[in-house]
């Protein structure tokens, strides 16, 4: 396959940045998207340029590090895939492919396609945990958990924190990410104890980070590589309402 790649190049946080065109030839359809980027980078290095910086690590769709906005969609045209799981067979010979970083005030660009997502960590630090110290746990089977609840908690817990929801949302809202963690922990008896404080604190931190509001467009659910459901957002809306109304 022969391709034209248009990539966002930005030297650093204060640089203005622009789209730059690259030509690639002989790309195999079985190659993954990031392997195509590797080839492009080695080509740039050999031509004496500076390679395109992009985040990636596990390359099997679980670490959540890769983060490219490809042809107008987070993680590209595939459904239920991260950028690293996208393969070139999703494209056609002669295609022009646009590659941009996640765009959000809360995800400032570090360089090229690399953005700073530590705002997600700060949201988790504000309450996305169960307050249990090592060694203080009772026997694992002491509290039975309804299987439906356990499965729903698991589905919410599969979030990889990649930020595609934010990147996709027209408002750069982090509601899907935050609600997934809120849901996971509030569905389980272990997490119910501090559910109210958790949802209040996490939403507060989310707002402070500068994410937008949820308009229920549903785009996040469609683009989420793990298919995290909008039901989680509804659950968080519910929990937050009760928590605000009953909080002393």
């Amino acid at each position, binding site marked *: 396959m022969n391709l034209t790649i248009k990539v966002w190049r930005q030297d650093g946080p204060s640089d203005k940045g622009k789209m730059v065109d690259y030509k690639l030839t002989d790309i195999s359809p079985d190659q993954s998207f990031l392997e195509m980027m590797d080839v492009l980078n080695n080509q740039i290095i050999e031509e004496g340029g500076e390679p395109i910086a992009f985040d990636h690590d596990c390359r099997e769709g679980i670490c959540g590090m890769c983060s490219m906005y490809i042809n107008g969609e987070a993680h590209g045209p595939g459904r239920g895939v991260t950028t690293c799981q996208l393969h070139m067979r999703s494209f056609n010979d002669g295609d022009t492919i646009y590659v941009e970083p996640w765009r959000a005030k809360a995800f400032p660009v570090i360089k090229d396609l690399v953005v700073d997502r530590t705002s997600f960590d700060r949201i988790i630090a504000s309450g996305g945990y169960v307050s249990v110290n090592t060694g203080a746990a009772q026997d694992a089977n002491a509290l039975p958990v309804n*299987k439906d609840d*356990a499965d729903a908690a698991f589905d919410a817990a599969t979030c*990889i924190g990649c930020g595609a929801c934010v990147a996709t949302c027209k408002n750069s809202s982090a509601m899907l990410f935050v609600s997934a963690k809120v849901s996971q922990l509030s569905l389980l008896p272990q997490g119910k104890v501090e559910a109210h404080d958790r949802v209040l604190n996490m939403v507060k931190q989310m707002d402070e980070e500068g994410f937008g509001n949820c308009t229920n467009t549903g785009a996040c659910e469609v683009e989420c590589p793990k298919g995290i459901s909008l039901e989680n957002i509804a659950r968080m809306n519910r929990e937050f309402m009760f928590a605000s109304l009953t909080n002393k």
Partner: protein
Amino acid sequence: MSLDSKIPEGPIAEKWTNHKNNIKLVNPANKRLIDVIVIGTGLAGGSAAASLAEMGYNVKAFCFQDSPRRAHSIAAQGGINAAKNYQNDGDSTYRLFYDTVKGGDYRSREANVYRLAEVSANIIDQCVAQGVPFAREYGGLLDNRSFGGVQVSRTFYAKGQTGQQLLLGAYSAMERQIGKGKIQMYDRHEMLDLVVVDGKARGIIARNLINGEIERHSAHAVLICSGGYGNVFFLSTNAMGSNATAAWKIHQKGAHFANPCYTQIHPTCIPVSGDYQSKLTLMSESLRNDGRIWVPKKKEDVEAIRSGKLRPREIKEEDRDYYLERRYPSFGNLVPRDVASRAAKERCDAGYGVNQTGEAVFLDFASAIMRYGREAANVQGIHNPDEKTIKKLGDEVIANKYGNLFQMYEKITDDNPYETPMKIYPAVHYTMGGVWVDYNLMTSIPGCYALGEANFSDHGANRLGASALMQGLADGYFVIPYTIGDYLADDIRTGTIPTDTPEFDAAEKAVQERINHFMNNKGSKPVDHFHKRLGKIMWEKCGMARNEKGLKEAIAEIQELRKEFWADVKVPGTANSFNQELEKAGRVADFLELGELMCLDALTRAESCGGHFREESQTDEGEAMRNDKDFTYVAAWEYTGEPSAAKLHKEELKYENIELKQRSYK
């Protein structure tokens, strides 16, 4: 320097308790005066950082990724072992201990393994309390499955994402402490050297990967939890960033490196598809519970499949060779990983590989789908169901168990594993070898510890499935919080370690010089070029089967390649900016030394054991043959300047509770 493993006295079942009762403690008020550096935030590092911070220590945690949640423990799929005996199948601490020692082919330390089995149950309790959503039965209690190399069901799991769920548990515990200010998190930072003051580990030199700044960080103890070194092979199931730099740096500063030749080649990975390949993807071992591995019996069928004339399901049952079931009737498809991998290689070497390159075998779910389908039909009260209904019901059961793995496979290969068997081949996955540690997990540098995959201690020459997660969390949650106190108790009056000392100066200067070399080197080839070549040498000559001639050649070739690398590597960009090529260059430089040490160790160990298979040491049937008389020891290598000149120290392994036997899974 002599090796003192510091194994406590007494009967094996009481060693750990006795040890805990006798080691020194640091009182809560004094813990606040002590700093601990943790390198890596995977299961070992994350759990250690969180636990130590909860106890009151000031923790500084480092990871090269953008968030501690990205560590590669997240990719572990299958599960975590624990001797809970929830399934009433006779499991016990002793059995887990026994299985692990046997699975490790009698090359691990008994006392360490027993402790691991002992604390395994606490790990499950801890994780459930954190909100880890393990799979459950309809009654609300935890579910288990069985894994390779054992005959009980002791593996706890969360679909095919167990590692992710456990890591997110440890990560959230860490974030809780970060929120409290007890952990200072340094993400996008890479440790580039260890600082040793008066013989003790007192700090590190790290590079801020965003702006390239070289930073000094001091502490009273340094924990290396940086994972394994599988990426020496270039292609492995490790993450792209997984590296051995932290472990190699402490090795250069005096920590012995143990059993580097013990690498685990995982039998069920997606085969290589082309030269552009950047990494390999694992298909969880749990698939072997229900999948049957086979190749055609006839060469002409192999040819027909390769050329696309025949589809795998068209091969008649009697023309299939279920070689694991044939060779190992009692364990069948559930033999340990090393055995399964070698068996696949044997078939492919004999010309029965089923893909274009001849390096793949089938993993087939057809019979499991039909079996589960019939069961489900019975449960739902469907009498005399037709084939289609059975298949549909069976597909649903399989989707429930392995849905995400099947999906992952389809995304990569464009093949639907519900309809056609998966193609799999072994790939480098885990490294049992690592930094030598004593019973307290301290390396041969006082104050420097190694946890998780980074150390060598618990898996011997082969790791059993679902044991890596167990070990990482055992080390971090339940071992280091106790044992570190024994060392730090002497440091309560030391005060903050200053960073403006000659030792820090010297370490920073060395780091700076190396970076300068890369930046000023007017080479012609990118880092990947050298990494790929190293990988090729390692895979061919120090991979699934090794021999004296190949290993000697490999050592010479790596030395040559290393020279070429330093002279001709091309690193673009600048040192004081975000520069991923510079990061890679440093890591590959260290792999180029470690690879050589691996070959040296493999050469020295002239026996077959676990994942280390020396062609010179096998039975008539082609099974691995140990040599207990000469090799029942841990090979701990001391750095002397050149990898090939490393000095060998032997720690004799004493088996007081388990009788050494030639492993048999027949």
